[in-house]
């Protein structure tokens, strides 16, 4: 026990352990706060991934099953960049690189498709995700990668519970992204044009909107947001080549829960999903926490398919 903290040096081992266990015990209230913090941390990750799904959905009404791979690439490229560049630079380079990958994906696989069905689109994006995963395995191998948090490793202690400072980064950046996206789609010319494509691509074309370009833009944008998500969550969760699928699944869940297409809905639903999972892990069973989150999702789908925060009227006229 020479390696342990010297605090109780000389105190008989047995006694010191009794002491420690008393010190370590946490009140129920403290536990609850800790679960909420954990839930918010994890939930902000889900929310961030969900945002990416929504952009493409808003323009094309399709779901990009490779969204999780953008996040994975964002994380891994960030690790690489952070080694040689200062953080803000590394972040920008990462986002730019993955944005390019998203654009290339759209040009090479989605754009050439003609007269597609939902099913074809689902399959194509799944195939792309397999490819991206394979490429990542080649470049980075199979080990997980770690990155230092943006602002120190020391967690913040609030109400007797600990929260990682990185969680604030994730929350802050997703907040900024939501704000920017909402503004972009409501106010900017390009944003409004992109939304018009989703409502009716034919009509949009007739009024002179370059639908083709808008779809490309939506892929680039969602890749950028996926990359940003990957870059900020890696210090919390580590990153490896095959993590994209699960992140994608949870993000997809959050997107549907919040109502496909709604940005603020996605973030709120992501947080909700994270908190429910964490509470379930804390009070019910940690093994079943994923199941509870999904069960919640199924219930919402069956009872209110437009999502918790989606517009019922709008969802009725959607194609899918």
């Amino acid at each position, binding site marked *: *026990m*020479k*390696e*342990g*903290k010297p*605090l109780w040096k000389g105190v008989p*081992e*047995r006694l010191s*352990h009794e002491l*420690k*266990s*008393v*010190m*370590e*015990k*946490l009140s*129920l209230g403290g*536990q609850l706060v*800790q*679960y909420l*913090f*954990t*839930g918010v*941390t*994890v939930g902000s*990750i889900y929310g961030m991934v969900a945002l990416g799904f929504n952009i493409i959905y808003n323009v094309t009404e399709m779901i990009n099953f490779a969204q999780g791979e953008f996040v994975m690439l964002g994380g891994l490229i960030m690790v690489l960049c952070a080694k040689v560049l200062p953080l803000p630079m590394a972040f920008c380079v990462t986002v730019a690189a993955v944005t390019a990958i998203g654009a290339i994906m759209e040009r090479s696989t989605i754009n050439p498709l*003609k007269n597609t069905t939902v099913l074809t689109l689902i399959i194509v994006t799944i195939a792309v995700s397999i490819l991206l995963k394979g490429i990542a*395995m080649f470049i980075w191998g*199979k*080990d*997980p*990668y*770690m990155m*230092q948090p943006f602002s120190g*490793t020391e*967690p913040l*202690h609030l109400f007797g*519970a*600990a929260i*990682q400072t990185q969680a604030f980064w994730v929350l802050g950046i997703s907040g900024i992204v939501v704000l920017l996206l909402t503004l972009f789609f409501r106010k900017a010319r390009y944003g409004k044009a992109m939304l018009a494509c989703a409502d009716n691509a034919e009509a949009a074309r007739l009024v002179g909107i370059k639908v083709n370009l808008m779809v490309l833009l939506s892929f680039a944008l969602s890749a950028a947001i996926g990359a940003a998500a990957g870059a900020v*969550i890696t210090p*919390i*969760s*580590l990153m*490896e080549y*095959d*993590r994209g699928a*699960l*992140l994608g699944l949870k993000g997809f869940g959050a997107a549907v829960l919040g109502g496909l297409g709604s940005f603020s809905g996605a973030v709120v639903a992501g947080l909700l999903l994270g908190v429910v999972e*964490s509470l379930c*892990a*804390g009070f019910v*069973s*940690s*093994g079943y*926490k*994923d199941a509870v989150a999904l069960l919640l999702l199924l219930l919402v789908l069956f009872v209110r398919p437009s999502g918790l925060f989606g517009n019922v009227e709008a969802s009725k006229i959607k194609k899918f």
Partner: protein
Amino acid sequence: MRRFGKGWGGSVTLTFCLILVWSLAPKAVTAKEPYKVGAVFAVTGGASILGEPEKRTAEMLAEEINKKGGIDGHKLELVLYDDESDETKCRTRVTRLIKTDKVPVIIGPSTSGNTMAVIAVCDESKVPLISCASSIKIVTPVSERKWIFKVAPSDSHSVERIYEFLLKKGIKKVAIMTVSDGYGSSGREELLRVAPNVGIEVVADERYGPKDTDLTAQLTRIRGTGAQAVINWSVGPTQILAVKNWKELGMTAMTFVQSHGFASKKNIELAGGAAEGVFCPLGRVNIPDLLPATDPQKKVIMAYNEAYQGRFKEPLSAFGGHAWDALQLAVEALAAVGPDPAKIRDYLENRKNFVGQGGVFNFSPADHCGLTKDSFEMVVVKNGTWALAQ
């Protein structure tokens, strides 16, 4: 679109025909009859962290043996397949090794699940299998596992070693947290089974998924139970997360023990300083420098370490050692009795005092693993490296 489709279709069909013809082509026959050893490892897929070093080690060792003139002048031919961590594929590969490649002995698979999936095949075809996976179910009940051996220590060995160590430190209340995959659940079974026998009380039993992004909730729950030590059982990113979150929650006063799956220096690096003070049971193969000169394994371990690190420029993991032991055993058996599956099986069953990377093996008709808890040393992470824990 249809015309375009047809053109491509022709080339696709042609390609597949070529592949078919290629796979049908007879294998080249050499003048000297080589001895074959079949190998199947999880080189890709979820368990690649195990399979990759196993493949590298097996190929390296096979090369070394051939450089030294092979097995009694017979060239060693290692037929190695990747099961992609998939049970169905693993079964197909093993069938292929037996039916098509006609190997007299097989080493691998890497994981317990894949081993369980191929036991029936080996049993039916009467070909001995030396598994590199750890579950005790692989070799028990021994009456139903006539053709199956394993070189990885059982989880019970590791658990017994950990409990013995904790008791010596006066710790009786432990919390366990295990990953919900084959590795974690096998460890969990043993942790729960052995505890009452040695007087340890398990006060918390937490589980989590292999791709979970945060383990704070589980650790917080453990914190509320008054456990004196927490034992984490997983491989991959979650074992790093567990240590990181333990540190972040300020729980360092609670002794943290990792399973033998932590046995790679990469893990200490990944935890970025958070691993200081973490205990874990390690096979001696991971700590050649810490071994006393009198240790019977020191020589073979030093040699393997130097060769592996010199060639692959990466730290050694225990898994590669399993492949070394399995292949070395197979080669010795071939040298002693030739390529006859039944004779190889009998030879393996009676092999005593085999000094390998995982320990000193003593196989017997009642024990197809041949190791004890003493194949593990308890170590602690100190200044970013391993140190023996006293």
